[in-house]
């Protein structure tokens, strides 16, 4: 029996501990964020969960005005795709201080919202 590689649990557990993790292939060293059970570069199933620096730049964004029921009280909110330092990307809510507007290439750091679980905790804030 092949062991189940629980990458989603690893990601959610890490986010709950205020960390972002990815998977690193033990043969080709390629990193995937979010983590994957098979290396997306070489296909190897030999991966290790590794902590990634919670910093990146804003690639693109939107401002959501019509939200699903789970996010109704947040509107309008900025949702962006953030490129991490190892060229991996994540989607997340971007919370900027009053007077600061989102911009291409803006430097962002990860933050974690209390009262949420798993991926919903992740927030991106501007680097002050």
């Amino acid at each position, binding site marked *: 029996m092949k062991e189940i590689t629980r990458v*989603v649990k690893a*990601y*959610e557990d890490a986010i709950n501990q205020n960390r972002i993790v990815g998977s690193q292939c033990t043969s080709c060293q390629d990193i995937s964020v*979010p983590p994957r059970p098979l290396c997306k570069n070489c296909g190897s199933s030999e991966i290790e969960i590794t902590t990634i620096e919670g910093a990146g730049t804003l*690639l*693109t*964004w*939107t*401002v*959501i*005005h*019509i*939200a*699903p*029921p*789970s*996010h*109704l009280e*947040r509107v*309008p*909110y900025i*949702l*962006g*795709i953030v490129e991490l330092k190892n060229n991996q*990307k*994540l*989607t*997340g*809510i971007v919370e900027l201080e009053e007077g600061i507007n989102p911009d*291409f290439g803006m430097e962002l750091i990860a933050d974690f919202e209390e009262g949420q679980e*798993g*991926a*919903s905790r*992740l927030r991106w804030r501007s680097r002050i």
Partner: protein
Amino acid sequence: MIAGYGHTKFGDLGRVTSRELVVAATIEALEMTNLNRNQIDSIYLGMLSPDIFEHQMHAAPGIPDYLGLNHTPSTRIEAACASGGLSVLHGIMAVASGFHDVVLSVGAEKMTNLPTSHTTEALAMCADDIYEVASGITFPGAFAMMARAHEHKYGTNAEMRASVAVKNHKHALDNELAQFRKELTIEKAMNSLMIADPLTLYDCSPITDGAAAVIIVPWEDRADYEGIRVKVKSFSQASDTMSLHDRNDLTGFMTTKVAARKAFDRASLQPKDIDFLEVHDCFTIAEIMAIEDMGFFEKGKGGQVTLDGETARDGHLPVNASGGLKAKGHPIGATGVSQIVEVAKQLSGNAESRQLNDVQYGMTQNLGGSGSTIVCHILERGD
């Protein structure tokens, strides 16, 4: 080949089930041919979510049930907004394999039962639940992020996006089955309610009820069948990552490029051979990206050529003469089949006041999720 088609009115159709819509579209399709319902060997039902919209799982056997067919196999195919196109593709494969002679591929959705925010939530479930939905993504939001990236790289602005909506609304004036049959101006489109910046209400396709059906039979046996003769030249399908953020390029869909290339290769055709398109304009930017990624226009020029009228019904490459998802409506599971119906109408000379002249080849592109599934078909006018 496609021997017959049926298509209900698209719109808010009130208290009706998807099963009843499917019956209406199917009977219309059969009546074009010399086939009766008992000759249907198998049914492929494209449907996103009878579970959420109608509290009905296991919807597939409901189709032969309501058609009064005993024991006819029926399979539901779900591929987000590409469910309909994929139901046609599987119907074609079943006939092409020689296993079945007469297949019904039908798509339907009954979406207007729920409040808008719940429909938005249901549709968002087509995104990656773990990494995108938990982060508050919506489909307008995903396409808005692509629209912003496209504008940043290529200068595709709000006016160009609005020109897609204006064109497709104009086309729908001549489609009596369309949800919206009213002309739209660039100004009105650009100044409408902001949904997901920079996409406004008129950048988005509507919430729609409806069904569309096609009857697929072997081309070799065409002499045996009455009805239309529209030949299936090729079909193709491609997949990409569930999450938009896992793609290298946020200004287009690699899946569209791959699927279109496969469809051209299998048909031994090139983009210049195609006379008209029905593409998946769930959002205005999606049509712009589709006509670029399929290889009809240089990357980055899709917005400008639309604004210039090149893709209007009287342009050199008509796109979405039916009104597209934008104005004809977008009953999710029905959409991919509806595209095939429109191409079959045009190629059989049955498109009435919106008939395109001298058309031999028509192509469809049906998109699921944020381009995670793409289905393409190329059809040819038969004799």
